[in-house]
């Protein structure tokens, strides 16, 4: 708008001036036609023309006839105007220019040589330019006032429109601001899911959904961990305090101390497991990837837990595969496999047979641990890998586990890019499978 204003102004200015000059030219021709030379050599207005100098049509048309510097005829409103200078035209050319009277009235002048009855004179027509100036000034004022006003109006209108367009956004912002940790179940309102704002709201809501689920899992885990940690603490404390209240002989005190130490051990195991989980999960555990033979892992696990199995009268059968070699972190995988075997031993009946088989295919290599125990229902097959999950809650601590063994195994295996799964049917035992991508093997050792 600002750029347009001077352009408009100058266009109008130009046009008005052009118009004025054109008018002057017409004036000149008209007046020249009406002038004549009388026998005395004076230039006079044509007596026979119907219009006279006092006709309204000629009121504004002023002219002067000069010969040299001598004013022969003048039609100019005010008598006491001082003599205006004459610019001598060169030859037949036309001179058009602006002058100012001594009173400051602007005049537009056209001068030209005219031949009146054979006499060569300079005919000069003049028009008052102040009207034109006034018009231009008015336009300028109009523009000067109008522009800020229009600008304000436009700004205001723009503001209103933008506000209306953005108000769904501000509604969303307000809602989003209200969503906190405690109210993650809220969602943003989405009346128009098809426009851009709607898509944004939909994505936002999806993110909230995932956040809510993560927090639910976290809350549940924290509650479970809290319970698991507090139970042995309570036993520790109550046993100790009650023993102190009673008078006890050395033997029963020894028993009490033993009982307390058992609980302390369990607590220690639990804390270690939790911390390990946290560290590996946070990604701050340094992996050491190397080429590992899976049958070695299997053998090591069996050796560690052999005594436990023997106590339960269980038999572990190893089916090795010496080609099963993968690129993994030995320690983590060892821990995972040992945990799975430990789980199998604990949950199988005395006298059960447990099979530990290493395998290798084109695509994957791994270890399978199967038992011929009671099996697990399908709905629990995924849940067993959850922290502190126990199918039979009554067995929480009598079997000695921390409830985290399988969860740790899952984390360790998956962090290395492997997969872990459970296949089972009630009555048909369980098979836990751990597998990794088969790496290229060099000749087996």
């Amino acid at each position, binding site marked *: 708008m600002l750029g347009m204003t001077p352009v408009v102004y100058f266009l109008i200015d130009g046009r008005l001036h052009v118009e004025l000059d054109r008018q002057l030219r017409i004036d000149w021709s008209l007046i020249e036609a009406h002038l004549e030379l009388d026998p005395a050599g004076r230039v006079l207005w044509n007596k026979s023309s119907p219009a006279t100098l006092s006709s309204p049509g000629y009121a504004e048309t002023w002219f002067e006839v000069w010969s040299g510097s001598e004013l022969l005829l003048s039609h100019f409103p005010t008598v006491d105007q001082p003599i205006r200078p004459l610019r001598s035209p060169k030859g037949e050319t036309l001179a058009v220019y602006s002058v100012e009277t001594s009173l400051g009235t602007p005049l537009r002048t056209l001068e030209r040589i005219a031949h009146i009855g054979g006499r060569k004179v300079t005919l000069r027509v003049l028009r008052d330019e102040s009207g034109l100036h006034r018009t231009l000034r008015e336009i300028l004022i109009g523009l000067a006032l109008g522009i800020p006003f229009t600008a304000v109006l436009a700004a205001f209108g723009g503001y209103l429109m933008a506000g209306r367009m953005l108000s769904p956004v501000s509604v969303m912002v307000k809602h989003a601001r209200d969503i906190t940790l405690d109210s993650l179940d809220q969602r943003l309102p989405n009346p128009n899911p098809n426009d851009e704002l709607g898509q944004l709201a939909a994505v936002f809501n999806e993110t909230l959904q995932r956040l809510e689920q993560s927090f639910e899992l976290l809350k549940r885990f924290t509650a479970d961990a809290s319970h698991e940690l507090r139970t042995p*603490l309570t036993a520790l404390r*109550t046993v100790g305090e009650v023993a102190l209240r009673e008078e006890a002989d050395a033997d029963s005190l020894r028993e009490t101390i033993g009982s307390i130490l058992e609980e302390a051990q369990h607590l220690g195991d639990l804390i270690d497991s939790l911390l390990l989980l946290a560290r590996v999960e946070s990604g701050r555990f340094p992996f050491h990837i190397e080429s590992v033979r899976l049958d070695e892992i299997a053998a090591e696990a069996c050796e560690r837990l052999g005594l436990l199995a023997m106590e339960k009268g269980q038999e572990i059968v190893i089916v090795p595969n010496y080609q099963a070699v993968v690129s993994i972190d030995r320690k983590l995988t060892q821990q995972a496999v040992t945990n799975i075997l430990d789980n199998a031993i604990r949950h199988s009946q005395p006298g059960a047979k447990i099979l530990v088989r290493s395998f290798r295919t084109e695509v994957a290599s791994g270890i399978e641990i199967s038992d011929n125990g009671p099996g697990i229902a399908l709905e629990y097959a995924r849940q067993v890998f959850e922290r502190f999950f126990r199918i039979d809650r009554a067995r929480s601590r009598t079997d000695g586990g921390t409830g985290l063994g399988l969860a740790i195994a899952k984390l360790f295996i998956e962090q290395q890019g492997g997969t872990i799964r459970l296949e089972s049917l009630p009555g048909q035992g369980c098979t836990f499978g751990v597998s990794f991508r088969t790496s290229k093997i060099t000749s087996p050792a």
Partner: protein
Amino acid sequence: MCLVSAVENAILDRVKILIIEDDGKTAQAIRRGLESEGYEAAVARTGEEGLSQLNSHAVDMVVLDWMLPGRDGIEVLRLLRARGNKPAVLLLTARDAVEDRVTGLDCGADDYLVKPFAFAELLARVRALSRRTNQEADLRKQIGDLIIDAHSRRIWRAGKEIILTLREFDLLVCLVRYEGQIVTRQMLAREVWRETNRATPLDNVIDVHLAHLRKKVDDGQPTKLIHTLRGVGFRLREETST
């Protein structure tokens, strides 16, 4: 420390407490601790077991763990209250969030204790709860021709009132509570004299008081109620003297 006056425990029947807790060690430790304070305590390891025990025996108080296998503590509590069961319930749990406390209390628990707890606090809360439920307790008991009124602290035998000292009365009440069972000097020291150390000096004091008590209660009566078992303790039982 504010000594709990013997009056609080001057009820004529031992308070029966059922402990429903799945962690064996904790459960047994609580039971032992309560019994040494003079309560009669039993343990149930699951919600179902607890409910069935409550059905078959009258119980004054329940110490209930929230996280139980099978039916959890809150379920047991709701069922209990729905059946109109009156025992006072102290809810024990590792859950310490405010919402959990509110839930527990709203579902009918009379008190709430977070694990791990100090055993002394458990005892204090049990005492507080039994004070409340005592109002309904029957404060009169009759054994043979012996009538005891624990409210007015008076006794009668064969219709005639017997005047006892403070200590003698407390001693008698203790024997009455364990009616038919053997009470050792240790138990008397703890429950009547509130003395937990192995304080040999008390033995003589106990004997002296008991002798006085027996004189007042049994002398001239056709049946002897207070009996001594050498080397073990004492027993209050209606027995025809040999």
